[in-house]
């Protein structure tokens, strides 16, 4: 039976998120394809006290930290690469509003893999000896920290390793380039840690640039790294990664990247950002108008556009996607 999991972005947020949850973003991080539109919708629905699992910071975490919606976070990298420090996150950490637990980019991936495999811990040869292992923002008392990455002994060689705790976030909102209505998905560009995350999370919602016919998945099954059987819902929301990039689909919007990060650097700027770029739209058309047709035109013909060519025959036009009946199957589990 062909299950049909397409729902709207507001419905996905209202159905699958709640205050205080452990919320993970799945993306090509830090300035690549992240479903930043999902974060905007979290704010539109006034979610709070979130515990963010972000392999790396992105403009989504920058925004959620600046507004105070995320109060705890675990990350490997917390900058914006070429765009500098993440000013909203930085402000939240320095003021103590956000407790940020530091890991590294490999240790976050290993923790997700441990969660995916349901292992009690993952042995690691990284982070040991550094303050990542010895300082804890979640358990600040005591140096060196005893419970963050405790040392263990390799039973075979006797060597000391670190034990990384597993991650099993309540929800992963994962950006994908292509999804069918059953939740089978193809990602273009680096997967980063979306494979492990999709298996580690209790629930997975996909945010796709394009909805494709399932024939696409049957043509390229090796490339379908997230199969529909572990996906609760699929959201079609083009330019969900804006102002970041989605390889094959659109480039980074450099002007907005800088504006956003500058505004999030102050309380007043953050309030202005919420008013102008979070609460200003209600529909997809209004969202696209907010980005602006000239910007969309400019970012939509980048050097990676050719990556999408093999899949184009299966991409469903907007009229077809919008004519698809709203999701109807019996839910696999209660929300």
């Amino acid at each position: 039976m062909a299950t049909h999991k397409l729902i709207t972005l507001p419905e996905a947020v209202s159905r699958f998120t709640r205050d205080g949850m452990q919320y993970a973003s799945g993306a090509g991080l830090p300035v690549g394809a992240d479903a930043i539109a999902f974060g905007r919708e979290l704010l539109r629905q006034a979610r709070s006290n979130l515990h963010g699992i972000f392999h790396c910071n992105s403009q989504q975490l920058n925004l959620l930290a600046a507004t105070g919606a995320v109060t705890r976070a675990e990350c490997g990298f917390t900058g914006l690469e070429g765009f500098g420090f993440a000013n909203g996150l930085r402000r939240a950490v320095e003021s103590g509003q956000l407790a940020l637990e530091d890991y590294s980019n490999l240790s976050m991936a290993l923790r997700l893999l441990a969660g995916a495999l349901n292992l009690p811990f993952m042995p690691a040869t990284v982070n040991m000896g550094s303050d990542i292992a010895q300082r804890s923002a979640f358990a600040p008392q005591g140096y060196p920290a005893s419970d963050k990455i405790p040392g263990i002994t390799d039973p075979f060689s006797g060597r000391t390793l670190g034990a990384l705790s597993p991650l099993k976030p309540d929800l992963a909102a994962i950006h994908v380039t292509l999804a069918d209505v059953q939740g089978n998905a193809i990602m273009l560009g680096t997967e980063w840690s979306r494979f492990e995350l999709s298996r580690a999370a209790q629930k997975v919602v996909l945010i796709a640039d394009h909805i494709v016919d399932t024939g696409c998945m049957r043509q390229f099954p090796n490339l379908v790294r997230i199969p529909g059987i572990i996906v609760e819902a699929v959201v079609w929301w083009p330019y969900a990664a804006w102002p970041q990039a989605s390889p094959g689909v659109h480039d980074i919007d450099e002007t907005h990247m800088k504006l956003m990060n500058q505004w999030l650097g102050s309380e007043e700027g953050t309030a202005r950002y919420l008013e102008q770029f979070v609460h200003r739209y209600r529909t997809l058309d209004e969202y696209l108008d907010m980005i602006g047709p000239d910007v969309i035109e400019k970012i939509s013909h980048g050097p990676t556009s050719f990556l999408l060519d093999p899949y184009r025959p299966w991409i469903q036009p907007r009229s077809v996607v919008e004519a698809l009946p709203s999701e109807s199957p019996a839910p696999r589990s209660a929300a």
Partner: protein
Amino acid sequence: MSASVEPAPAPYTRQEMMAIAAGREIHDGELAIFGVGLSMLAGYFAQAHHAPNVRAMTEGGVYGSTPLGGLPWGIECNRISANAVSFTSALDALGCMVASGRCDVGLIGAAQVDKFGNVNTTGIWGHDMGDTYTPPKTRLTGAGGANDIASGAKRFVIMVGHEKKRFVNKVDYISSPGYLEGGQARERYGFVGGGPSAIVTTLGILRPHPHTREFELSGWFAYTSVEEVRAHTGWDLKLAAHAQQLAEPSVSELSALRRVDQTGMLRKATAQ
């Protein structure tokens, strides 16, 4: 160095000198991992100039690509994704390629570095934290993949602007381990990788003493002096055996670097 037989180069910036000197640390055929920004420019400069067969990757698992249209905004952005031969994941690049011990060399940046090559990119506290963790006065970017490179790569090179506030006796926070407290300290933790082989700065190159692992001045650039380097270093910087002035960029080095640095990021940079 080829510089001795070529004519004097056109004027160059200190950032360009640092990128070229760091690129000289990368050898042909090596498996190499570059971070974003300066270290990527230095790495791709090496590939464009003297290491055409360097096997480069980014920590997101982008293989076989060269930057297109200027310096990539990130290790996964479109400018580094337009001519790749393989896209995988962080687990693959930082795990299977680096933590495994396979990676020959990594290039990383630093906000602070100390005399044992420990790197801080996490925050500035400005005081000893003591036994209780407190938020930093200034939050930086965190370790990212640099901790993994510092733990697992056979060797790594640190690139950092040479300022006294950055070259400290002891970093506020060890984001990425150098030689920790010096000597054999790294061996307590069973790291796969060997530690930092050089600190390349805007003024020269520091290398670790073979036994104490304290970084010493190994060479300085033509536009500076031992005295100036020492004045900008927060510990009593020793002179390494055979320390010397280093070759200026050759014409071919500079033109290779500028082909990679299409947008002129290193030329816009001010002194330091």
